[in-house]
């Protein structure tokens, strides 16, 4: 029992420690593809360190929401980490506190607070970005719902630990159309939710075109550091859900020995780096969509998820 508790805490520590690294690798690889040298892969750590040592400026007209939001954004991915398989393929201490739907809701809570805080200060760019994020969000919601229902229907459960085993027992299940198409739809969902090209340009500096980034423009010092770190962790957690629950459970620790669980940490990093490579290829080969074309992108994701649902439902 105690070891399960410790493993659960280890998952949280791995997510906290490695999330900025993944962000750094992603930025570096993107610059490399454009034949630039790019920042060091440890740059996000330096940014966060620097921001923690700076003074914080908070608008006088803002309410408690603005001050509370960085902590909510920082903590919500960590709560999700307690529920999902990051290192082990068996349920840990807190695993039965909630299923995948709970994970989705907890992540959405962070997004909700970030949106409110962006509107709170009265900065003209904040509400604009917030309303755009909501637009992308409500278009992504049906896709998330259909993916979730298809997965739980095919696997017969909403607990991520049972779902991930279903895809490889027997191995033929891996090629189930419901599985492959769901993976495709969820990949598009991750791109939309984390604000990557073709939906949003994460490295853009033009406020009028921003979707996700403009929500954090008002933050400085510790608040900005927590928002940045929380965003990186949200990306890491989404990648973990995608890779460990939906794509393939390979590389997770199945034993209860400490060395096995410790060894699982570099394996999940390698898996995420492979995913990052795919994302870099997508980001470098596509252009950012115009705002009203995002409906088409998410419409395609919706069609994919419904195709998964239909083929999965009638194949049974």
């Amino acid at each position, binding site marked *: 029992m105690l070891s399960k508790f410790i493993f659960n805490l280890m998952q949280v520590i791995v997510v906290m420690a490695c999330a900025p690294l993944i962000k750094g690798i992603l930025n570096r690889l993107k610059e490399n593809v454009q034949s630039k040298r790019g920042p060091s892969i440890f740059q996000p750590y330096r940014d966060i360190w620097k921001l923690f040592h700076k003074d914080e400026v908070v608008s006088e007209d803002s309410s408690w929401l603005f001050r509370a939001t960085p902590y909510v954004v920082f903590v919500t991915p960590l709560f999700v980490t307690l529920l999902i398989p990051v290192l082990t393929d068996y349920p840990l201490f807190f695993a039965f506190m909630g299923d995948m739907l709970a994970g989705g809701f907890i992540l959405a809570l962070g997004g909700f607070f970030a949106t409110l805080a962006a509107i709170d200060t009265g900065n003209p760019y904040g509400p604009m970005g917030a309303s755009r994020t909501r637009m992308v969000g409500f278009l992504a919601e049906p896709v998330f719902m259909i993916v979730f229902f298809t997965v739980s229907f095919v696997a017969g459960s909403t607990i991520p630990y049972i779902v991930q085993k279903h895809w490889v027992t027997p191995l*033929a299940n891996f090629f189930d159309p419901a599985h*492959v198409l769901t993976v495709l739809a969820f990949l598009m969902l991750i791109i939309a939710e984390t604000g990557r090209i073709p939906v949003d340009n994460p490295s853009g500096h033009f406020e009028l075109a921003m979707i996700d980034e403009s929500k954090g423009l008002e933050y400085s010092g510790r608040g900005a550091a927590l928002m940045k770190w929380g965003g990186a962790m949200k990306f890491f957690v989404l990648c973990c859900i995608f890779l460990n629950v939906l794509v393939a459970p390979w590389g997770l620790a199945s034993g209860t020995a400490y060395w096995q669980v410790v060894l699982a940490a570099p394996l999940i990093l390698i898996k995420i780096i492979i995913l990052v490579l795919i994302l870099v290829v997508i980001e470098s080969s596509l252009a950012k969509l115009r705002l009203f074309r995002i409906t088409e992108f998410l*419409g395609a994701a*919706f*069609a994919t998820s419904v*195709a998964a649902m239909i083929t999965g439902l009638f194949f049974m």
Partner: protein
Amino acid sequence: MSDPDLLFSFLTKLNALTGGVFLLVAFGLVAIRQMLTCLRLYVFQSLLLAISALMLGYHYGSIHLFVVAGLTIIAKVFIIPWLLRRTVGYESYAKREISQAINIPASLLIALAITIFAYFIANPMLTAAHAGIFARVNLPIGLACLILGAFTVTVRREAVPQLLGILAMENGAFFAGIAIAPTLPLFAELAAAFDVLIIALVMGLLTMKIHKTLGKTAVGELIALKEE
């Protein structure tokens, strides 16, 4: 699990996956803007049809289905794209924006409704015929692609995507056909493959003619008669 069982379960899943991607490509033909991508999607769909035919042919031990696969690859993966590129000029393909009668998200939603409709039609047929596991995948998806092809013809305003819609209808019919009639006479297959080639050639030449007279291929705008 014994060895043939394992192979069978892999075969059914892979065939179902082919069907799922086949359906997805049909959605793509309805909604993708770029003309060249549409053509590539059609080639990919034909390839998927050939793969499904190969798997079913292996399962049923039917030489006819191998012939279907071979004919599909020769006619639809090589000759038809070549014909369409030759007859329709390059400038029609270089176009990135194709105008649609209904906007893209709405037409995708209609396409989804069509697919579910196709499943509802196919389901009683499947229960009545005590269909095997392959027909349970291929018949509804083939039927859906048939109707989606017709929908593509109605919703597109350009000649080449409309032509691809007709060809996709034919693909859908074949996709359903290989599962319910694995021992189709060879003659029928040859005739169908030849038919498709003629359709592609005639439509391609017609499109070229339209392009020469009008300077564009947006046949959706040709609604009023004009005297010269």
